[in-house]
């Protein structure tokens, strides 16, 4: 990030390149996410946003570049190890196990070391509706409830870094607003949050910084208000 913020940098990507088979999709991505802030990663379809998240989470190995989390180089670490170390990615549209009950879904969060009791308590406190549905299989929940469950599971383990992929996809605007309020609140508690969105407006309301990604590169970084104009250019190609 050019205008380096004064806070501690929790996540840093240095010149990350990644490819699917022979086709390179990330051509040197540089990005920093400070602690206790929300960074929005925006860009059109196919820009490489989700791949960036997959690389950070350890689901896709970068071909070159360095990934630094909390001052430690973690490039090439496995997803399950990163999860146990305090990273949480909520993937696009399918953050729950559809054939497991709500309670069993929450139980999966205990691999990071939290007790089931703690996970359930925090989850139900944040989303009371989940408590009513705790014996229901997650696949039968509504889209909004599934996203709540995914968030609840992610947040209940008190992650240091939270990655959200297309949080708003397929959800009613009122629910999206509700979810983003929670995101902002979690950031105030000290968590570093990286949000990937295609549809930008809602997330700009809560983001401290925004980065625009086009064609596998970060083309612009700044305060959300500064980026409004570039944003429409990135989408419309103007």
């Amino acid at each position, binding site marked *: 990030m050019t205008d380096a913020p004064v806070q501690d940098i929790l996540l840093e990507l240095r010149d990350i390149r990644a490819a699917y088979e022979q086709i390179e999709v990330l051509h040197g991505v540089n990005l920093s996410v400070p602690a206790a802030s929300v960074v929005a990663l925006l860009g059109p379809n196919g820009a490489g946003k989700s791949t960036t998240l997959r690389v950070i989470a350890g689901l896709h190995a970068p071909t070159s570049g360095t990934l630094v989390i909390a001052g430690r180089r973690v490039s090439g670490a496995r997803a*399950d190890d990163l999860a146990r170390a305090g990273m949480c990615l909520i993937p696009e549209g399918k953050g729950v*196990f559809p054939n*497991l009950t709500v309670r069993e879904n929450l139980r999966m969060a205990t*691999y990071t070391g939290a007790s089931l009791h703690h996970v359930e308590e925090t989850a139900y406190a944040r989303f009371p509706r989940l408590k009513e549905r705790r014996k229901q299989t997650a696949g039968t929940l509504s889209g909004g409830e599934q996203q709540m469950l995914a968030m609840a599971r992610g947040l209940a383990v008190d992650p240091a870094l939270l990655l959200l992929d297309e949080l708003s996809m397929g959800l009613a605007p009122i629910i999206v607003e509700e979810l983003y309020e929670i995101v902002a609140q979690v950031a105030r508690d000290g968590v570093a949050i990286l949000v990937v969105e295609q549809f930008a407006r809602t997330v700009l309301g809560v983001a401290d910084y925004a980065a625009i990604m086009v064609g596998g590169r970060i083309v612009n970084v700044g305060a959300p208000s500064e980026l409004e104009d570039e944003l429409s250019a990135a989408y419309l190609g103007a």
Partner: protein
Amino acid sequence: MSTFLTFLITGLTTAAIYAVGASGLVLTYTTTGVFNFAHGAVGMFGAFLYWQLRFDWGWPAPIALAIVLLVMAPLFGVFLEVAIMRNLEGTSEAVRLVVSISLLAALVGAANWIWDPTQNRFTASFFEGKGFDFFGTRVTWHEAATVLIAIAVAIGLRFVLYNLRAGVAMRATVDDRPLAALNGARSDRSAMLAWAIGCSLAALSGILFLGTLALDAGTLSLLIVNAYAAAMIGRLRSLPMTFLGALIIGLAEAFWQIYRNDLSQHFHVFTSTYLDTFASAIAVIILFVVLWLLPNPRLRGHSRVREFFPTPSLRGSLVFVGIVIAGAAFISAWTTQSHQIDLANVFALGIIALSLVPLTGFAGQVSLASLSFAGIGAVTMAHLGGGGDPLGLLWAALICAGIGALVAIPALRLSGIYLALATAAFAVMLDRWIFNLPNFRVFGWFNVKLFEQGSVAVTRLKVFGLDTSSPRAQVVLGAVAFSLIALFVVALRRSRFGRRLLAMKDSEAACATLGMNLVGTKVAVFALSAAIAGVGGALYGGVQQSVNAQMFSFINGLPIFMLAVVGGIGAIGGAFFAGISLALLTTILPDVVPSLSHLLLITPGLIGISLGRNPSGAVSQIREGFAPMRQSKVALGFLAASLTAIVVLRSTNTIANWPTFFAALVVLVASVPIGEMFAHKAPAEVAEEPGAGAGAEIPLEWVGITRPFTDEDVRQMDAALGISEVEMYGAARS
């Protein structure tokens, strides 16, 4: 009433054992996506180990049980996961199948190696055969314990999967593997646990069969086919339905025994000798029916796999068959009659393996029944090819094509593992039941003759007045037939129909949305494959001169499929590899080096297991290794000159067979570094890619990758996929 109760108890006991075996199978399939054909073989091995500890060494039963079920079997499961199954991520269904079938073959081979199969082994049921009286019927404690164990397994699995975090993680891995990892769950450990439990359950089912069944590696390993049927009733997913399935099959088998007698008093048809061997086929018939009744799956979309087969060039294929025919002619001139028979087998088996190239290699449809079609071809040749009439060959092709099309009908709705199981069920039904039938009449006029409950003679072909009855003539006939069919397969691959098959393999959904006729294409390729296998079987019968049902059994067919996939199922070279390695492993090497015969029992299995690491097969690797030689005129010249010299030396009896063989080998290997040395001097040769076809023409499947699409390309694509030209664009533009 008491007979009823006796058979009810027998049925329940059998059902209980099937249930234990099938639940282990379902557990490993759902958590790891690998359908373990070797599940029964693992159970067999467990049973042998138990026999060793309990009866041979005389250890107390509880200790022997604990060691096998709680130590050895789980450890073996973990070993399987770490050493083999983990590498199968991203491979095609055929490769996964081959790896587990190979494991089956290796385990059966190892068991026959360790425990001499000719020796009789004493086994006994648990509790020394003691029992109790139950409503006037005697029930042994063994039977009661078996049923109780099945119930305990059901409850235990339920507890593990729903109440332990490790079990919840297993189910989570099934739902979404990456998400499980994002939660911090170790999916590899879940898989290990699943394999450990699965192998333990397999061993338990194997041990429970002791006392009622003879300790035989092959029989015990194949009993699992019955458990497959149970697992399929649970659609490989639901454990309760699997238990129900086991119950249905166990009881059906038991009640068939009593009610057949009762029914035959009223209905004459049930006394028929045709039903004598029916009982053993009940489970596979249920399996077949269940597969038919499965709800229509969604069409497969694009699947990314690691294997790749380039389009064969016509020139390369012609060179290949030229070498094959010349090699066969020369080598057969120098060898003894018994080796000539071995050599003729190479080509007959090679043709059977060729039948898999269009079906599995191009179209991606797995079939485990190719040897069964070969059996039908051999029988046809025996009865309709009297006096070596070539029309017998034609009948073999036609009849097999017809039956192949019939088998394709359920296959239209199945793919992957379900299709493999359906063809396996068909093959097992033939070899357990149909092939053992005496002659019968259909609709009162059509006489069907099979193996006549023994063996039937096959007369060697007379083609255009040429007698092929000498072994050497059989070799040449085999080589020519193999070459012709191989060229046909190459032409098919390069044709419009071949491209359609490949498109179907890549994405059925895409083909359907483009308007391609999937039904017709699948039926056609099944019929074609069956016809090739039938011709191969007819020629194989001619080589052997006498055929019986055992030669074409399901289990004998597995190595052909396995080795063809190992060789490279998408290329004719792979089929040749299958023929040659099968003949080498089963007849030639044991003859030459008898001390190796035990090792050879497990070799095909080990070769197959290695496939997980190289899914494109061995032939593609060999091909790549020889690339420098093929691209250098100097090396090719050296090779041709040296081989000619060797042939001359051998023909004039200057050198013997073994020196000839080794000299040829040395020359072949030496041509590679020579090719590398002179490679830079022949840049024009290097530029010509063997897969690129003639001249600058780009194969259709590479258009859009190597250069952008043009309107002409789109028209060609439509034609190739059998879609009538759509005027959509034209209308919009004008």
